[in-house]
């Protein structure tokens, strides 16, 4: 039947896309943990949490930008922001974002302004990238659901 074929295809597309996110390092196993937490009682849990992250990260990135623009940079403050971003990105499994945070923190320790600015830029880039990825993913999910299908479950057995 056409409809179910479409749904099936959409599901496969979703699977492929998700797989690519893992393969390309955008997501790590922590995201799987999040998926486990989502269930019928909380069908939008992941969307909710990811949204929280991007709101928070936007704020943090703004804070970071401002902090690094100051004439006398308070590296401890900068480090604090990065630390938080590292924590939240790791908690949703946004691996590449987290990795940039780690690098950025080392520049903070060295009090290396150049390095901080450079990696702040990278941080913004990575955040934007993964945000788009999530947007795509969620859109696909919505379309699957709209077509009457369900999202395939992912159980990664290590």
């Amino acid at each position, binding site marked *: 039947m056409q409809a179910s074929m479409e749904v099936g295809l959409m599901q496969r597309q979703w699977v492929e896309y998700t797989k690519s996110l893992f393969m390309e390092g955008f997501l790590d196993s922590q995201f799987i943990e999040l998926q486990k*937490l989502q269930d019928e009682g909380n069908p939008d849990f992941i969307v*909710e949490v990811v949204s929280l992250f991007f709101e928070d990260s936007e704020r943090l990135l703004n804070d970071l930008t401002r902090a690094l623009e100051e004439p006398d940079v308070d590296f401890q403050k900068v480090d604090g922001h990065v630390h938080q971003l590292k924590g939240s990105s790791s908690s949703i499994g946004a691996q590449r974002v987290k990795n940039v945070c780690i690098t950025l923190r080392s520049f903070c320790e060295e009090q290396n302004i150049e390095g901080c600015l450079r990696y702040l830029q990278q941080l913004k880039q990575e955040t934007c990238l993964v945000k788009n990825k999530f947007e795509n993913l969620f859109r696909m999910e919505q379309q699957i659901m709209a077509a009457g299908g369900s999202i395939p479950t992912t159980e990664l057995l290590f």
Partner: protein
Amino acid sequence: MALFCLWGYLSLWGMDPSHTKGTMPTSTSISARKAADMGCDQFPAGLRVLVVDDDPTCLRILEKMLQNCCYAVTKCNRAEIALSMLRENKNGFDIVLSDVHMPDMDGFKLLEQVGLEMDLPVIMMSADDGKNVVMKGVIHGACDYLIKPVRIEALKNIWQHVVRKRKSEWKDLEQSGSMDDGDRDQNVSEGANYSSSAYDGSWNSSKRKRDAEEELEERDDTSALKKPRVVWSVELHQQFVIAVDQLGIDKAVPKKILELMNVPGLSRENVASHLQKYRLYLRRLSGVSPHPSNLNNSFMNPQDHPPFGSMASSYNGIDLQTLLVTGQLSPQSLAALQATGLRRPTAKSSLPMALVDQNNIFSFENPKLRFGEDQTQHLNNTKPVSLFHGIPTKMEPKQLANMQHPSVQTQRNMNMNMNMNMNMALNIKSEHGGTQLMHLSQQQTVGQTLNNSNVTHLPGIPSTLRNLIISGSVTTGNGTADNSHGPRYNLVSPTSVMVNYPMSQTTEVFQEEMNSNLKVSSGVMSSYGVFSDLHMQKSHDWDSQNVSTLAFGTPHHGNFIHHSFDISPSSLIHHGFPSSQTNGENHNSSVNGKTNFSFLDSTQPGIPQSVDHNSFFDPGEVKNQIIPDASYQTDLLSEDFGQDELLGVFLKQEQQEDNGSVDFSGYQTENICV
């Protein structure tokens, strides 16, 4: 033993799926049903967890994980709010999870205050796994330390810390001789339905310990199990302290204290319970020292008297210093105190108490003062003042040592005792598995060192001073430590805390950021009618493509959404407990006047949240450009899983054959981020 009763009483309480506490029955019943489905009708289901984290993402994830563990979760994004919640609801929580890095208060400070005021187990969390930070957690008394990102498996077992703490406190209770034989038997019979043999073993061992005690006071048979609750007023506590002082360290047993106090209507059990809490308090004082020399001392001899008093007295010495600094203690009093202490022959100078983390002491002092709210005129809780600055009568470590217990043995014991804390703490791990080093319970270790945990004291200290010391809260606006601040440490009755296990629910407290629930009908958060206009909440229609991000209103007062935990079972429970347990509850009422924190009053400046209208899912904003592929990295995959695994797993759900290339509309190619 209380644990045994706990198991029994839990069955009384039970998890009734139809028992809804929320204002919106739908979500609560969903979570209740889910709880039942997950087999959440047994302990530790309903464990009341307070999770504190300023990161909203982590907070939400933790909340969900804890809910999935069938715990009753309250989340909070500000440490100050968390503290006020804990104070308002003394027995409302069983365990606290807190992040280390928080903007308004250092997580370690929160840890200390919770440990001191409420004596709850606290687990620290951080993305920081550096050894120093972890050690800091250990030293400040965290019972565990979790590295973020936290996995649900790590949270499943946090109940053990609650049990462990209760167990050690019960042991102290027994060892202090505060329980009659009759009481004990009664409790055992009531707890007969406990299932775990582990507790059986520990019960027996603690019983043996009791028998081995040097002082087995005669049992007082007169006490009925159910006694009217005693309010430990400041005057009463002063009398208690005087009595303890007069009796001396080794002799301060409940019966004699009772005789000395000569208060009609006061029972030995009341005194015993109070004594136990007093000891706990002193132990906390003494157990916080991070001095490395602790680790090097030899292992303690269990026969020796644990010189809590000596420790406490040293700490008291420091307390006195603090008091002096802050003007609460007159130099004359301090001199008198020191003179008293100097009468005692010196034992081998052990830990230089002066080197105790002064910030710790300070922070210990702070919460008491802050209870007075507007009266914290002296101690600024953020000021890291050295306690020994400008003190006219400086107490050298030697002098401090002088103040300690006369016997050399006890001096050594003190070393060992503290050392025991650290050693046991660091070595404990293997019993418990899981996070090894972090698995500490200072209470437990100290509990084990106590075979005769008579409170020690500094004889001759004016009782008013002693009161000041004990309470830690120097003055309120009244100018004397004359209110129920004194016996603050009484407030949490160890057993009464255990029994209230409401169903797995979620409550939240927000300071300035409200996370609106996206799917209002299904989210647990929406089950509370408190989401009023006070909170700027946008209802999101997830069915539509255009979903705006969560709106954050201007900083507003946090709204305390706390389900009233059903405390009626506690009245059942307290039937079976000796009256010693009632004191805790008593204090709740007695200190109400002081703990009326309305955190609605605590206006936090916070960070104004801009109402972010950048749509997360607005297709219109998606730019149709292709970014270079070079940025993709494939090396990360190998870290986690093999490709084949991935393939097999992802295709868990059966897929239909692909007969042709069908364009999946809406699948955008990669977009460039502006």
